[in-house]
């Protein structure tokens, strides 16, 4: 069974994505931050990582770079809903969703998805990366 790691600071996002993937037959683990995710990857081999971009401590782009560097065989899906880092105070140039996802792509993400995505979009991305019938 293919193993998928979900990294997102939002519990509901983690659980809903996990629910969809579990139903699709994947084994799913979750982390609420990128640092823990890298530690977990060191202990447990994963086939695919689904990671948010905007997260406290280490952001998704840094996480993707680290995964690509340390675990080059792991496939990566980046997800983001846009917004500001922290959204505190006035930021004259809000970094746009497409900019986050573009950064994620440049860092090595194989697929990028804009939140909120449909079940079909998620499954298609995962199946494309892991190969149909691998579940």
């Amino acid at each position, binding site marked *: 069974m293919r193993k998928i790691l979900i990294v997102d600071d939002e519990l509901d996002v983690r659980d809903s*994505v996990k629910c969809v993937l579990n139903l699709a037959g994947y084994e799913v683990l979750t982390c609420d931050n990128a640092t823990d995710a890298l530690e977990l990857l060191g202990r447990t081999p994963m086939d695919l990582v689904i990671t948010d971009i905007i997260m406290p401590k280490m952001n998704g782009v840094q996480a993707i770079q680290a995964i690509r560097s340390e675990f080059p065989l792991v496939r990566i899906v980046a997800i983001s809903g846009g917004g500001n880092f922290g959204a505190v105070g006035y930021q004259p140039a809000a970094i746009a969703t*497409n900019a986050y996802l573009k950064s994620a792509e440049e860092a090595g993400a194989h697929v990028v998805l804009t939140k*909120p995505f449909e079940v079909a979009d998620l499954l298609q991305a995962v199946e494309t990366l892991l190969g149909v019938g691998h579940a």
Partner: protein
Amino acid sequence: MVRLRTSFANYVTLWVVAVHIILLPALFFGMGYVIRKSHENLFVEHARTFARVVAEEFEVGAALDSRQRTEDLLDLAVLHGEALYAELYDRGVATRSRLGSADILSPRHTDLGFGQGGDGIYFIVLPIVHAGHNAELRLGFDELPAQERIHLALRRMLWLLGGYLGIAIGIAIVLSYRLSRPIHRLQDVSRVIATGDYARVLNISTGIRELHDLASDLEAMRRELVGVIKAKEQSEARRDELQRQLRHRQRLETVGTLASGIAHEFNNVLVPIILFTSTVLQDVSLAGASRSHLERVLGAARRAKDVVKKILTFTRELDEARLALIDLRVVVTEGLNLFSALAPPSIEIRTEIAEEIPLVKADATLALHLVINLCTNAYQAMDGADGVLSIGLRYRDCGDGSLGPQPCVELWVSDTGHGMEPDTLERIFEPFFTTRSVGQGTGLGLSVVHGIVESFGASITVETKIGEGTTFRVVFPAVVRVGDEFIAADA
């Protein structure tokens, strides 16, 4: 030292009076002396000439031959020579005219001048030689008539000079008032200008060249001042407008930043709603009202997703705008085709599209979105009433002349709706701001328009008048071809 000041008219009049007070007595005494001397000399000359004529008559005539003849000649001298006294002294005997005054003492010699002795008589004593013996003719002429003529002449001269003085003062007063009138006008206008009323024109009509030149110079200064003030006002107005635009932009940026943050949170919230609902709906055993309700939850979540997408459009968090060189005429035509199907028949659509316009750098899909949003806004502004919606495209030069021509393409959409109040105008690009009733709009249409315009590097302006309608103008920097390259001009 205190210097007394008076009006120009009084100043000139006082000077004229002062000059004449000095000049006229001198003139009076000078001319009086001449008149007096003239009369006196005339009198003396007359008396002497007459005396010589009488003396010659005695010398060459027969008047001395008898006393009677002597008296007759002496009487003749008194009668016709205006002599007051006539006497002939011959060999110790004095014969006196019977007509002259008897109480006058015989003189010893001729008076040296008029008025000598203070007796009012001018005496002449002439020696006569007749038939070998000597005699003396003694005549006295009355000085009083001559003195009266002198006094009369002097009085006349005094009146003449007095009249002259009056006329001179009159002319001085009239002239000074005429001269001071344009000065007063200059003064009045200068005071008005000093109070800040620079519109008052210094138009002084005078034949005095210096005053005319002074007025012309002051008018030139006033125009210069008006120009400087107008330039300053324009500069201040431009600064105020730029500050207003900056405040507006900052507010939109702040709202955009806030909306962007909310959108991020909202997207995270929508993920579990969509995924969990979809997962539950995959359960085929779910039926009836439960399935229907969950489908409505999923539908609502997807609509919420669209709303978030619009907010992100406003905040320029668009999907990568695929900017390319496009012909806005094609976009507008396509937009009108789509909009015509939606617009009610009460709206008359007019188009004014230039035949040739340069290309612009924009995303064709977003540009279409822009046109439809502007048309929808215009149609809604007319509240379903009859009206005209105009849409146009034209080429224009956006430069102010300082940096050379700046080619632009202007897209405008205008309506004949109710127009907007200034407070409304200030906020129309803010997301969720709407003047329409609940359910008639989300208030996102114009904020999306603003986001699209910004992503193109274009600019948007609004002109509105209550009761007449509103015009939106979007100005795109045109792309000009330089050699083999297309270069976008700055908007």
